[in-house]
């Protein structure tokens, strides 16, 4: 009866095909629709299905990231962006439509042509599997004593790349700050929505939402920390955990208002956090320099045991990533929500 665990290979092919078909349908629907609301929802479904597909491809870490971002934050941010634009997309001009169609068609054909030269899935002789990739897989466990290879590659062997990615996230946050403001006090001309908080309607309703959300917030935060600290053993790490913890604050802001969230997690703290995370990451690298080795070389962090040094270094930079990602998500959220145009009934 243990045959449940062993399944014929084509079972996975069938599942993959159905998932990709769903992706195709959702993608086509997104292209066809003009209602941005529906598109936001379809984008949510697209994210759900692609997470499933990543799991099916054994890329659990990627699936985890997709899940963390797609479950809450991306919808919220897309809605925030939508508020600043309009509710329906303008139909494209026919000439442009056809022009872009041909460009897409040509690109697609070129890609399909390239596919024929690609190594087959899981080919041991293909470039990513044979040279440096194979080396990482061989050396990861003795070097770092961390079971999850993704973590050691991402944080140690490819430490420079990850530092770059973290800086990109910080830059994204800075960009939002520059365009949409710091998320502090609301600018003069953008007047506050007149919702009467002490109005009986606002008080009595949404009891269910309030109670359940309050219960969920600590659970989500704890799960975020679990993901953070178990990145060495399974899928997860600073990127995912940062998004999850930011989601808890965003949930709070959705229920109790952004002002309440800003009172508890001030924009200033968030702005400092965004930079602090990168500072911790870079500081870990400098610690390596001071101890007489290369930048981001963790072996020297513990003079007695190189693997332990690796563990320390990875932990430290993951905390940096967590702080930056979490803060930048909130910077973006505060940035989008502090600019709320008044929408009249006619425009809606």
């Amino acid at each position, binding site marked *: *009866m243990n045959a*449940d665990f062993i399944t014929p290979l084509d079972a996975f092919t069938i599942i993959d095909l159905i998932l990709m078909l769903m992706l195709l349908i959702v993608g086509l629907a997104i292209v066809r629709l003009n209602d941005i609301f529906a598109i936001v929802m379809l984008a949510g479904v697209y994210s759900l299905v692609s997470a499933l597909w990543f799991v099916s491809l054994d890329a659990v870490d990627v699936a985890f990231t997709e899940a963390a971002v797609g479950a809450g934050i991306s919808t919220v941010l897309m809605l925030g962006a939508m508020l600043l634009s309009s509710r329906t997309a303008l139909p494209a001009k026919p000439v442009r439509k056809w022009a872009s169609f041909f460009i897409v068609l040509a690109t697609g054909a070129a890609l399909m042509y390239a596919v024929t030269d690609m190594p087959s899935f899981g080919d041991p002789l293909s470039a990513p599997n044979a040279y440096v990739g194979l080396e990482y897989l061989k050396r990861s466990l003795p070097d770092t004593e961390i079971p999850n290879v993704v973590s050691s590659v991402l944080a140690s062997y490819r430490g420079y790349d990850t530092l770059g990615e973290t800086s990109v996230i910080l830059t994204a946050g800075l960009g939002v700050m520059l365009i949409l403001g710091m998320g502090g006090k609301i600018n003069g001309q953008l007047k506050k929505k007149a919702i009467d908080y002490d109005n009986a309607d606002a008080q009595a*309703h*949404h009891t*269910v*939402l309030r109670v*359940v959300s309050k*219960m*969920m917030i600590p659970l989500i935060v704890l799960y975020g920390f679990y993901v953070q600290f178990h990145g060495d053993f399974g899928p997860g790490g600073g990127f995912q955990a940062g998004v999850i913890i930011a989601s808890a604050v965003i949930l709070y802001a959705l229920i109790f208002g952004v002002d309440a969230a800003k009172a508890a997690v001030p924009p200033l703290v968030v702005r400092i956090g965004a930079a602090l995370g990168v500072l911790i990451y870079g500081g870990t690298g400098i610690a390596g320099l001071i101890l007489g080795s290369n930048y981001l070389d963790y072996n020297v962090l513990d003079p007695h045991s190189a693997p332990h040094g690796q563990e320390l270094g990875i932990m430290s930079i993951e905390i940096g990533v967590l702080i930056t990602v979490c803060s930048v998500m909130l910077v973006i959220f505060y940035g989008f929500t502090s600019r709320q145009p008044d929408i009249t009934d006619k425009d809606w």
Partner: protein
Amino acid sequence: MSTVLEILHIARFGLAGVFLLGGGFFVLAGAIGVLRLPDFYTRLHAAGVTDTMGSTLILLGLMLIAGFTLLSVKLALVGLFLFLTSPTATHAVANAAHKAKLKPLLGTYRQTRKGDNEGGSQ
């Protein structure tokens, strides 16, 4: 002794299979309901079938396969969180529709196989 264990083993996996397929049935029935039922409010009920019976049976079936492990605890947590969040989300959707004055279909509604409907006879 070993035969008893073997029978228990088979019974466990057999039961797991029954639970899994039963759960799949309820999930499918709920989905068919969401597609078939005439208006938004009635569709909520069909979606509830998936959220409750479907998820419980499937998770129970998987827990039977996993046995007394940490994985079972995680599956139980999945079920618990679904029980917390899914009715809340359903309530939120229903509430929003109600507040937006979306009229529910009331009275008696009959849908025959051919698809000709008669409804709203209060």
